[in-house]
């Protein structure tokens, strides 16, 4: 990354080049010959579970030597809701509301992930319009998730202004989500074989307006942070992981790419025809907090590009597959047509049966690779629904990254992982 050529010289005021104070009051006692030895005794600090800088209910027990982190032990599970167990008792379409609540900062793309896995399991091909709309949903999710990340991380490091700018833009996407699904946070957008609703008429012009004005905010954030001496000083060289370490810790998404591994599910295992869109995979080289910031910022530009292309190519046509076994008939037809009513009844009472087998679909969520693994024994409810939670796995590298850094850097490192506890604990 060429942006990364910033040299910092942070002068400490009041200290000369030898580190001696320039202003000493006349009454000061002479400096002792030997400073008392304060090393050796370690201090334990409990951070969280209720702490604004842990981004949810994460508890970190930190062993400190002075201000240096010797060891950091994360404790999870405060938000454990047993979604995977609940999924075993629900029809495939009934699982979709659960996915909203895992990574609640990008609900639409979680919905898409589950629907894709269920469709793969059942062998359903979705319609072209639905494919493009799902791409729009995924990229909108990426933007709001990265905006929250930018805002909260900058606030963790003491920069308040980007937080307000980022949340303002996020709100515009939330308006669009509300327009489309009726909900801001718990969207439940997809159904197996399609979507819960088509977009309203005013959606396309509003989203187009967003894609035209949004890069301006990104430019502003870039101008305020990227060359900012305090920002660079707090993030460069902090929490760095090499490419080999990132792979060994199974990191994914921006965390993996910031370490210089060019793996993006959208390019390397394309779903939803992502291979036909023109966008770049953003790769860092140092793998520190600063590179993760650059990667996420640039990904917002790329998402914006994809959104524009998707809007340009959005075809007309149905959003649901033409298969009465998986898609509910319209209410009017269910009330007037015998056959439609039977299908309606069977779907609501019995659910959609999936053939025996298993399917795993990984999608590039804002946090990393979100995997949905469904195993079916031929009934309408999965035997096992496994979420591969990207932020859970990314977080597992936190103790390694934090070792030897200052306690204040731990906050920056933890923020850079981009966790959302709803997904970590599920």
């Amino acid at each position, binding site marked *: 990354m060429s942006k990364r050529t910033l040299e910092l010289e942070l002068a400490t005021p009041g200290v000369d080049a030898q580190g001696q104070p320039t202003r000493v009051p006349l009454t000061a006692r002479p400096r002792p010959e030997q400073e008392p030895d304060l090393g050796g005794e*370690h201090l*334990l600090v*409990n951070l969280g*579970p209720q702490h604004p800088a842990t981004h949810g209910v994460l*508890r970190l*027990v930190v*062993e400190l030597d002075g201000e240096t982190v010797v*060891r950091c*032990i994360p*404790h*999870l*599970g405060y938000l*454990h809701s*047993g979604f*995977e*167990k*609940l999924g075993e*008792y629900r029809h495939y379409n009934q699982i979709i509301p659960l996915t909203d609540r895992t990574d609640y900062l990008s609900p639409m793309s979680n919905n898409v992930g589950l629907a894709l896995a269920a469709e*793969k*399991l059942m*062998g359903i091909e979705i319609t072209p319009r639905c494919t493009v709309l799902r791409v729009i949903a995924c990229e909108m999710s990426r933007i709001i998730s990265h905006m929250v990340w930018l805002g909260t991380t900058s606030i963790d490091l003491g920069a308040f202004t980007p937080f307000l700018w980022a949340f303002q833009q996020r709100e515009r996407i939330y308006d669009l989500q509300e327009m489309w699904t009726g909900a801001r946070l718990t969207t439940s957008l997809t159904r197996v074989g399609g979507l819960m609703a088509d977009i309203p008429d005013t959606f396309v012009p509003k989203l187009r307006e967003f894609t035209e004005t949004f890069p301006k905010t990104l430019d502003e954030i870039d101008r305020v942070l990227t060359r900012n001496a305090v920002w660079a000083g707090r993030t460069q060289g902090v929490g760095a992981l090499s490419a080999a370490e990132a*792979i*060994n*810790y*199974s*990191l994914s998404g921006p965390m993996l790419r910031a370490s210089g*591994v060019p*793996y993006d599910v959208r390019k*390397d*295992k394309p779903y939803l025809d992502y291979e036909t869109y023109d966008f770049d995979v953003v790769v860092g080289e140092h793998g520190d907090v600063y590179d993760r910031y650059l990667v996420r910022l640039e990904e917002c530009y790329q998402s914006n590009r994809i959104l524009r292309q998707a809007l340009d190519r959005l075809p007309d046509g149905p959003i649901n597959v033409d298969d009465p076994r998986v898609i509910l008939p319209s209410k009017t037809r269910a009330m007037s047509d015998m056959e439609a009513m039977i299908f309606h009844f069977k779907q609501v009472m019995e659910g959609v049966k999936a*053939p025996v*087998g*298993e*399917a*795993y*679909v*990984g999608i590039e969520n804002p946090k990393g*690779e979100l*995997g949905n*693994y469904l*195993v079916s*024994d031929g009934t309408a409810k999965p*035997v*096992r629904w*496994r979420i*591969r939670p990207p932020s*859970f*796995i990314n*977080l*597992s*590298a936190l103790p*390694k990254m934090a070792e030897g850094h200052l306690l204040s850097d731990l906050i920056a490192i933890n923020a850079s992982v981009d966790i959302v506890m709803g997904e970590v*604990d*599920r």
Partner: protein
Amino acid sequence: MIPGAVREAVARDGERIVYVARERLLEAMTWLKETPGEQYNYLVDVTAVEFRDRERPIELVYFLRSLERRVDVRIKVELQPNEELVVDSVWGLWHGADWLEREVYDMFGITFRGHPDLRRILMWETYAEGYPLRKSFPLRGRFSRAEQVRQALNANPEAHYSLEELSIADAGGDLPEDMRERLRRGERGVIPEPPGP
């Protein structure tokens, strides 16, 4: 040919599934990771599947990926429910397996031999109701609501923290018996009284 491979199958999403004998799992994984031409250097996920048919073996599933070749493979180990649920840990090959194996242990009760810190991860450590994702575990838990509330209030997981707690993570399997006994009772990391005058 993968060492220890028993049979192969193809999943509905077109991925290759290889069943590996339990005793030779680590050998097979090392081979997959280090053999040129295979280079499955990335562990995507570790999970387990128990079927509604209790006679069927529990499957332990490893998702591997070669980042160079952009190829995935799914390795499965079958564990008979009537025998001891123990398998070798792959933590030495991929550190990413650390929390994933802990979660499988927490949710299914499968023990990973050689894991450095096999503790519960999502449930608290004194959780006594069993393993939530097993099919024998009722959806609302084994205990009554009142008992669950009572235990949850007494669990008090963040009341104390101590150096002892940190050392547990290091000690792994070789904790002294009395300490393990205290942990089992839920008395952990109690701050010692200051010495008398």
